[in-house]
């Protein structure tokens, strides 16, 4: 299909058309240079719903795809601060406060142990530190999965046999059929012109 897609068209509209667009076009590349070259070309043509799939993180590809930095570090920073506050708060609460009216299992108490003050700053450092690291690390991992929308076990690109090499030794540029700039055969021809060794479409 060669009809130009406009940005206002929705997925529901397309599904009703007999010759609906494919889920995506997969272009396979042999090496890092041709991938970087193709990525820049696709980026500069204004595609937005597209991606590169590589067996390992390729240096400079983020720039070549025109990607913005991830927000993940801010989440991790927030989690680290939360962990630190939770750690120091827990220790101060249990060891240095006696707030009445709570069920006894939850109550803190003031207890002098080995002559140390209620607020034993240095003694509270290790647990504060460990909780900072723990929450930050869990967020780094969980945040990575969440922002990447993983786990997502079904993916139409898995239907392609060639795509199995994306985790081995081939590099793929995948342009989604619902990209506003996607133009069917013209897009396929463009990818072929970028030294792709194969170009195929997959249906959802």
């Amino acid at each position, binding site marked *: 299909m060669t009809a130009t897609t406009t940005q206002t068209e929705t997925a529901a509209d397309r599904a009703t058309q007999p010759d609906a667009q494919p889920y995506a076009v997969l272009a396979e590349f042999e090496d*890092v240079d041709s991938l970087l070259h193709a990525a820049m070309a696709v980026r500069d043509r204004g595609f937005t719903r597209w991606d590169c799939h590589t067996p390992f993180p390729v240096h400079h*590809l983020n720039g070549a795809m025109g990607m913005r930095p991830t927000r993940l570090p801010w989440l991790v920073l927030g989690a680290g601060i939360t962990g630190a506050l939770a750690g120091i708060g827990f220790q101060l609460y249990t*060891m240095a406060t006696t707030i009445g009216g709570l069920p006894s299992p*939850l109550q803190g108490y003031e207890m002098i142990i080995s002559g140390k003050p209620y607020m034993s700053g240095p*003694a509270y450092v*290790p647990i504060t530190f*460990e909780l900072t*690291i723990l929450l930050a690390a869990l967020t780094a991992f969980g945040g990575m999965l969440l922002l990447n929308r993983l786990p997502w076990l079904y993916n139409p690109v898995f239907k392609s046999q060639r795509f199995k090499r994306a985790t081995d030794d081939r590099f793929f540029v995948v342009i989604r059929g619902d990209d506003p700039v996607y133009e069917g055969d013209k897009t396929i021809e463009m990818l072929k012109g970028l030294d792709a060794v194969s170009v195929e479409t997959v249906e959802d």
Partner: protein
Amino acid sequence: MATLTTDNLDERQALDNTWEDPAKRAPLVLGDKSFGEVTSAVTDIALKPVKQTSFGWFVGLAIAISLLGMLGTLILYLLLTGVGVWGNNQPVAWGFPIVNFVFWVGIGHAGTLISAILFLFRQNWRTGINRFAEAMTIFAVMCAGLFPGIHVGRAWLAYWLGPIPNQMAMWPNPRSPLLWDVFAVSTYATVSMLFWYMGMIPDLATLRDRAKDRPRQIIYGLLALGWTGSNRHWQRFEKAYMLLAALATPLVLSVHSVVSFDFATSQLPGWHTTIFPPYFVAGAIFGGFAMVLVLAIPARKWLKLEQIITKRHIDNCGKVMLATGMIVGYAYITEIFTAWYSAASFEQFAFKNRLNPASPLGWSFYVMFFCNVVVIQFLWFKPLRQNMMFLWFIAVLVNVGMWFERFVIIITSLVRDNVPSSWGAFVPTWVDYAMLVGSFGLFFTFFLLFCRFGPVVAIAEVKTVMPQAHAGHSKHKYDDVPASEGTADYRVPGGEESE
């Protein structure tokens, strides 16, 4: 030697990457491999049908599982009978279980050191061995976690260690190093596990895509979480990996410091020293690298990974072992000097007792010193470092020495403390010995299973250190893809298109 010209250095390095050329980096993957060959070298191990597994692996697994079974039986015996089955007594309340705990948690340090600290220092050679070492860390920390859990006596009340509200209205005491230990070790176990699993996700996807049989496709598929190698995913993955490395670096240094606080903050002569945290951390890395070598030297041969885990990797581990071993040796001598210089009579006595071969357990100091300080001096010599059999033997001795280090610190200090009327003796029982041996069963059961079915080498990471992973090394050449690394600006290739 006529062949020693600079002309054939590339060829020489391609065969033996321990050959030093200061002008260029040595290759980290030998044999001029393609990406596909690296993938196959690692995935073929995991994807081989079970029927084709070597007989030796089954024998190893049978031995390991038997020992694990023995450990399980002994734990049951311990729980039904009580801690009296051990040689622990007053004054030696911390007998073998705590020696074993510190020994195993120490071994568990090399994995995270290799994966986190060497990552931050851009030591690319880590990629060959990090997966391996991380797996070792997880299994060692499992062994470590077991011993304090059963050493509490009433193991079914081990949850009292955690800050859980309870009917006694009692919180654990956060001023005690023992509670710090609970937090440090459990955080370490969690973070090491995250680091290990997260690094494995892309490799599990590789296994999923190459698996031919349905069970493997399903299991690897579930574990890979639907990873597609998307660069938008890689971006966050790399950032998360870097952040985890940055978080794990102070963590790995803190964990053994906290373990050493268990000793250093007490009043016991022989324990009450400020040198303990750095000394314990160096010892942990030393012992951990020794364990990496004990496992990697045979594994790289049996799994035919000699071109990925190269001689240079092994040589580097030997160097790290030598450096940390020298720190440990220095700490031993500093401890003795400090005891003498402190003029504290109890401290002096503790060390006289420790160094006196005629005192009970006095021999253990010399076993430790021989294995950890004397033996490693051979590692100054390159031919000895690169002799695999010899290096393996030294690494085994270092592991023995590091176990004895904990034995010396814990047992000899406790046996004779300040007051002679409270002196005692320590005689381990058969249960003590059998549990130590059994913990190796636990360790090796998991390790052998991982070597057979897991991605033993970080496939994706190894590919990033190969020359063709960088721009300018391909058969295609483009004007807008500059070969020079670092200076390339991919944000404005050929000018921004006006839109």
